[in-house]
């Protein structure tokens, strides 16, 4: 792994620590309340705070996961370094697109 990718992965990891803790708390709260879609959307719709929180979370996790998968592919699969890199970029793009679509769906629609 290059120094640049190493730093990106560690920086996104450190950034996500409070995000994951809050997300686990949200999971516990949401499952305890047995929320319907209407309950969820009434809390998230139009909320700049949730949009910012999960927008940054999606960006960070897309970068972090794609670099992690790239490392695994490089070390455990027969893929060449360059091919592993392209797979990781594709995964990062898919995660970012689906993730931002989810955030938009929950907050703006």
């Amino acid at each position, binding site marked *: 792994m290059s120094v640049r990718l190493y730093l990106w992965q560690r920086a996104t990891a450190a950034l996500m620590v409070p995000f994951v803790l809050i997300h686990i708390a949200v999971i516990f709260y949401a*499952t305890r309340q047995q929320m319907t879609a209407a309950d969820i959307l009434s809390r998230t719709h139009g909320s700049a705070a949730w949009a910012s929180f999960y927008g940054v979370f999606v960006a960070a996790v897309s970068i972090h*996961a794609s670099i992690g998968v790239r490392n695994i592919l490089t070390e455990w699969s027969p893929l060449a370094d360059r091919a592993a890199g392209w797979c990781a970029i594709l995964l990062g793009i898919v*995660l970012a697109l689906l993730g931002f679509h989810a955030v938009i769906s929950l907050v703006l629609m």
Partner: protein
Amino acid sequence: MSAAGTKHRGSALWLAAMIHRLSGLALAIFLPIHFFVLGLSFHGGAKLDAFLRWSDQPLVKFAEGGLVFLLTIHLLGGLRVLVIENFDWHDGQKRLAMLAATVSAIVCFVFLVRVF
């Protein structure tokens, strides 16, 4: 690889690193599905509601408990890596790794108790 080169395999810290890697991989596989489901609310809540009703069954709740475990253990394993790389080495790494697994199991257990 020589026997000396593989003798660390199976040790507690090797296991901690392996669990961190495998939990990360599992979460990376789960995430697109998670985002897709949340995106079902794009055209209103009906499809998301249908999914939430479907998810209200024991097997799915157990799977959700497993995901909470994976997320917690990946978080704690990641914290361990960040501490090792950025601060002075401290003894008791094995105990910390064991503590991470224990805390993750407790969080998972509490989650399952709450949803059932």
